[in-house]
């Protein structure tokens, strides 16, 4: 060590630092690396406190700035704790890293609060996130960041986000759930009983799917709908002309009232469907059965299917009526506004 001690005028290199630590702490220092410009020293849990103490008090090292302390999930081996120290006099940085004793069930790591005051909150945070116990810490409870009655340790890898289990990723692809070939990794939902709103979302999604399915069936049967089917409908019944997509009368009226095109179109669509329901409601169901080519007796499954369709139909009707009602309400309230403005002008 004499050659190291002789060079007090400059900062120690990582190799010299490791040699110094090994000299003082012996086999408590396990290994070191300087990958990615980060000098990391692995310390045995027994030497954790002593290593930090040495780093602070040894005048050659003089790590006086406590930068941060964090936990890392180390899979089956339990958890790691990393302390990052910095020296304002030499400009060196060291990352001390240790593996907690006690595995995943009861991870324990000695506290550094008596060496660095800044370790206090950092250790509380690590306890809050990983459930690592720090003997010697003045008080890890109450939990520093999460809500007081929070259950689980959020940053452990076996803590799954309930929202992600209950609700699919809204984007195009799911970054965390795809493997290298781009295949979706199937993950069993491990958190049971997702909170209320998501159940609601799921129910709504199912309902929407049922409505869509019944609409598709109907379109196939009736031959109404999109342009593609309109061109193909010539081959089919001549008397059933391709119905227009929306009620032109309502559409024109709404446009004249100054509504936006999109609103007018959607309302006109609803109006048309309403008219069709009122005019020839019975053609829909009967037509589709014939279209299927029913020379066989309808089986039980088909019957169930038909019942399901009917139910979906009824549900959809109800939804549309409700939509139409609210639409009218909106109209009424919209009309109220210009009236009020008039009054304002008069006043």
């Amino acid at each position: 060590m004499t050659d190291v001690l002789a060079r007090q005028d400059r900062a120690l290199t990582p190799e010299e630092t490791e040699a110094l630590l090994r000299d003082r702490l012996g086999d408590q220092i396990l290994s070191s690396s300087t990958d990615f410009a980060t000098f990391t020293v692995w310390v045995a849990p027994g030497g954790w406190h002593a290593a930090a103490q040495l780093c602070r008090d040894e005048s050659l090292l003089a790590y006086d700035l406590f930068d941060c302390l964090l936990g890392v999930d180390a899979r089956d081996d339990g958890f790691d704790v990393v302390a990052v120290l910095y020296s304002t006099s030499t400009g060196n940085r060291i990352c001390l890293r240790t593996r907690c004793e006690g595995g995943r069930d009861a991870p324990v790591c000695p506290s550094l609060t008596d060496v660095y005051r800044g370790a206090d909150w950092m250790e509380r945070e690590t306890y809050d996130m990983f459930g690592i116990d720090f003997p010697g810490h003045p008080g890890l409870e109450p939990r520093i960041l999460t809500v007081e009655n929070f259950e689980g340790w959020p940053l452990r890898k076996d803590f799954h986000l309930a929202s992600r289990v209950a609700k699919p990723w809204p984007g195009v692809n799911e970054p965390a759930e795809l493997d290298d070939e781009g295949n979706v990794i199937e993950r069993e939902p491990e958190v049971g009983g997702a909170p209320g709103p998501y159940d609601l979302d799921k129910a709504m999604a199912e309902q929407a799917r049922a409505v869509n399915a019944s609409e598709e069936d109907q379109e196939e049967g009736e031959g109404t709908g999109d342009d593609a089917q309109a061109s193909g409908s010539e081959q089919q019944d001549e008397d059933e002309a391709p119905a227009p997509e929306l009620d032109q009368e309502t559409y024109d009226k709404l446009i004249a009232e100054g509504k936006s095109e999109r609103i007018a179109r959607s309302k006109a669509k609803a109006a048309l469907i309403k008219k069709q329901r009122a005019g020839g409601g019975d053609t829909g169901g009967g037509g589709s059965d014939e279209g299927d080519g029913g020379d066989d007796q309808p089986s039980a499954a088909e019957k169930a299917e038909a019942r399901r369709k009917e139910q979906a139909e009824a549900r959809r009707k109800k939804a549309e009526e409700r939509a139409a009602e609210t639409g009218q309400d909106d109209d009424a309230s919209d009309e109220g506004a210009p009236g009020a403005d008039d009054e304002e002008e008069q006043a």
Partner: protein
Amino acid sequence: MSDLSTRERVHPGSAPGEDFHLEIVGDGDFQTADMKLSIGPAHPATHGVFRIVLEMDGERVTGARPVIGYMHRGFEKLAEHRDYRQIKALVNRHDWLSGFSNELGVALAVERMMEMEVPDRAQWIRMLLAEWNRILNHLMFIGSYAIELGAITPMFYAFREREDIQHLLESATGGRLHFTYNQVGGLKIDLPKGFLRQSTELSALIRKRVPDYHDLVLGNDIFQARTVGVGPLPPEVALSLGVTGPTLHATGVPEDSRVTEPYLKYGEIDVDVPVGENGDSFDRFYCLLARISASLDIIDQIHDHLPAGPVNTKLPKMVKAPEGATYLRTENPLGQLGYWLESDGGRTPWRLKMRTPSFSNVQAIPYLLEGVLVPDAIAVLGSVFFVVGDIDR
């Protein structure tokens, strides 16, 4: 109200086991009671959802305990479920006053792990915008600290400048607060035409207006009476707590990673780090204000240096950091922002720890508040500049 427990009636969100009863001390006719005063989580003096429980003997604070976590949004967990592009959108939201500097750190950490060479022009532009962002942040605190001390006008001045700077940054990035302009390997897009001219003009304009703040706030008698000598912080305590940024500079330690561990191109220009002497509230505010001028100096140097060339590199189809871990820190407006990025070679980080300046700085508050009077407590609390999202993440 019926669904709130009695404890929550006393104080919303208080932790279990916390009692706000009066502790009787002394005996006989001299019995007095220490009072516990809970400020926050929604209180004008704490700018943000930050709560502090003061123990008081009369007007004097005998103990203080910050209660944090009201803005904990679980960033570190969410980052493990997002890839390196998507993290950017979250990372610039934790400290909402310095969005650009936040995303810069992540980009630099990933680039370091992927051993990526970033074009010179991109690095200079990153510095330029980071310095503008620093001024943007400091202006906000100049306004809010003055409000806490009872002066409402500086806020309006500060926001006049802020709007100008936001307008400038918006022309390049499209965002007012959250820029999302960095990307791994460079920048999203080059600066728009005329940006440099506007930047130069704005720099001159703000340089002309900085003396106004010296006159309006720093030179104000009331301001000085309320801050000089209030809440001094010794440098060794500050370092042991991990305090950085203007709060550390005020104690006389010129520790600034732009100087001591230069990243980007900070090594090629002169960076002035203003320091204080006593580490009191006045010095903290002085450092904040002086850093605006220092940043303007840097901006002017960048204008002279900015080279031509590309601003981004060709990226692989999927950005994946190789297996390993790195720790990188940058000088955020409020102090040093460190990222511990650990990757298992996948598309998402295995662990992304954010060491935020506010978290460490706020730890100093119990030390600072001990023994001060209640009105001074507000002056001290405001002078340890923090953003609540930066504490809780």
